[in-house]
């Protein structure tokens, strides 16, 4: 049995009296220490899936088991990095991290909480900004604080909900790289599920990439293993034959899901690379 098991999960939301099925029969197994990325279009239900796996919202059908235990509500030793940072604006960067550490490790003495918070802020390169509030930090810096907050709690499982989605392209690239390095530097391997709409981001960090078909009734496609030694760099990934192969397979799977849904529409242009480009003309809601 895998460390994290998602079995036949379905979820529908009521919108304007109509049931809208977001997820249908989603099944996924993640091994301990594995880094799995779920790649899909914007608005395809990825975040809903992550919220269910993390225990923030319950599924309508199916179940999620973590380490054999049924997930009901947010489990201890779990951390989440949200796309919109979700830092508390009235606390400084250090206080934000400190609050998380103190709450995750209540048995530690106070001094250790503070040291841990400081250490992780240093790891993400924010030692000098420790006493600034989120409002005084750039988007990239805020997300660094959020990553420090998540890792400092020493979680078993980490959920990254499109963590770089709100950042500009350059910052995004820099932070991806930093996260890749942070991961290879950590002694413990944290089981991680990342939601993203960038295949390159997924290739840089994951052991496996799972394509997600388009909502409504989104489900997961065939996982694509990424057997490239870590840490990886974007420069290497652009030329690596394995990476190109994996990328092509993910794109193929995602394209197929779009084409199956919209046979009458002109074929969407799908540049190999960032999949949210070229698909902006495809409406998210097609079925009433």
């Amino acid at each position, binding site marked *: 049995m895998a460390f994290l098991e998602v079995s036949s999960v379905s979820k529908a939301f009521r919108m304007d009296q109509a049931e809208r099925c977001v997820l249908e029969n989603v099944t996924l197994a993640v091994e301990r220490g594995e880094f799995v990325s779920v790649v899909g279009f914007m608005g395809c239900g990825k975040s809903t899936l992550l919220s269910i796996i*993390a225990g923030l919202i319950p599924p309508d059908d199916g179940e999620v088991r973590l380490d054999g235990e049924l997930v009901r509500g947010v489990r201890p030793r779990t951390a989440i990095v949200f796309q919109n940072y979700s830092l508390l604006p009235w606390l400084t960067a250090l206080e934000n991290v400190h609050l*998380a550490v103190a709450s*995750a490790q209540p048995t530690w003495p106070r001094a250790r909480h503070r040291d841990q918070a400081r250490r992780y802020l240093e790891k993400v390169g924010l030692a000098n900004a420790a006493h600034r509030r989120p409002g005084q930090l750039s988007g990239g810096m805020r997300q660094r604080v959020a990553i420090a907050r998540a890792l400092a709690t020493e979680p078993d499982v980490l959920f990254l909900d499109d963590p770089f989605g709100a950042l500009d392209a350059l910052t995004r690239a820099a932070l991806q790289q930093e996260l890749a390095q942070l991961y290879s530097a950590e002694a413990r391997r944290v089981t991680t599920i990342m939601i993203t709409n960038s295949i390159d981001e997924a290739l840089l960090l994951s052991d496996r990439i799972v394509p997600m078909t388009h909502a409504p009734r989104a489900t997961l496609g065939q996982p694509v293993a990424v057997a490239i030694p870590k840490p990886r760099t974007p420069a290497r990934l652009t030329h690596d034959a394995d990476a190109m192969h994996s990328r092509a397979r993910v794109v193929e799977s995602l394209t197929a899901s779009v084409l199956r849904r919209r046979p009458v529409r002109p074929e969407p242009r799908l540049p190999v690379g960032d999949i949210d480009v070229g698909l902006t003309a495809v409406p998210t809601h097609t079925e009433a």
Partner: protein
Amino acid sequence: MRTRVRDVGRRFLPLSGIALIGLIWFVASRSVPDLPSPVQTWNESKTYVLQPFDKRGEMDQGIARLATYSLLRVSKGFLLGIAIATPLGLLLGVSPTLHRMFDPAIQILRPISPLAWLPLGLVVFRKSEPAAMFAIAVCSMWPTVINSAAGVRAVPQDYWNVARVLRLSRWATFTKIVVPATLPYIFTGYRLSLGIAWLVIVASEMLTGTPGIGGFLWQEYNSLIYAHILLAIITIGLIGFALDRLMGLAESRLRAA
């Protein structure tokens, strides 16, 4: 150059508005026999203004002294009001059940005039001071109750998620998330409450005959010294304006933080 002219004009506009109202007052005093003109008002009031801390008798005191009595009374009533209103509002914000239970009652109690509460206060407390305090508290607390509750309901889902992900206890969620997130709303409530508390003071002093700016106003009306009514009105207005500005300052500080 042009912008400077406009700047000066802008600064001049509020003053000209006040001057215009003074002019209306002056014209009105010409046609209404008992209404003192601005000049007459000043002449009859200047001892109160120029010796603001004098005490010549129970009601015959300098304007600053009278204002201090009123301000003390208001602050007591106001503090009592918000001491009840803040936790009550937070509670109503947290619990939809309590909100549904008490909202109609609040909407009924809210529009009741201080003139109606005061006699009830006198019946219950048998003394004018606690009755005045009661009237001020009970009239001024509603904006704080309503704003605090609205503030809690407006706490973004993101923050609740943070609380759940960090597995904060109920108490930590309350102190670390709910209260800081709601603080700007609470202060808007305080500002509105203080405005009402100051409105109520005159009514309560008039009815109880206690020394203060409102009591002075009523006494001077009874002694037929109408100029002093205008003195009291202007003083009440200026103090109310100053209080609102002070609270506004505190509020904007909080928002900036």
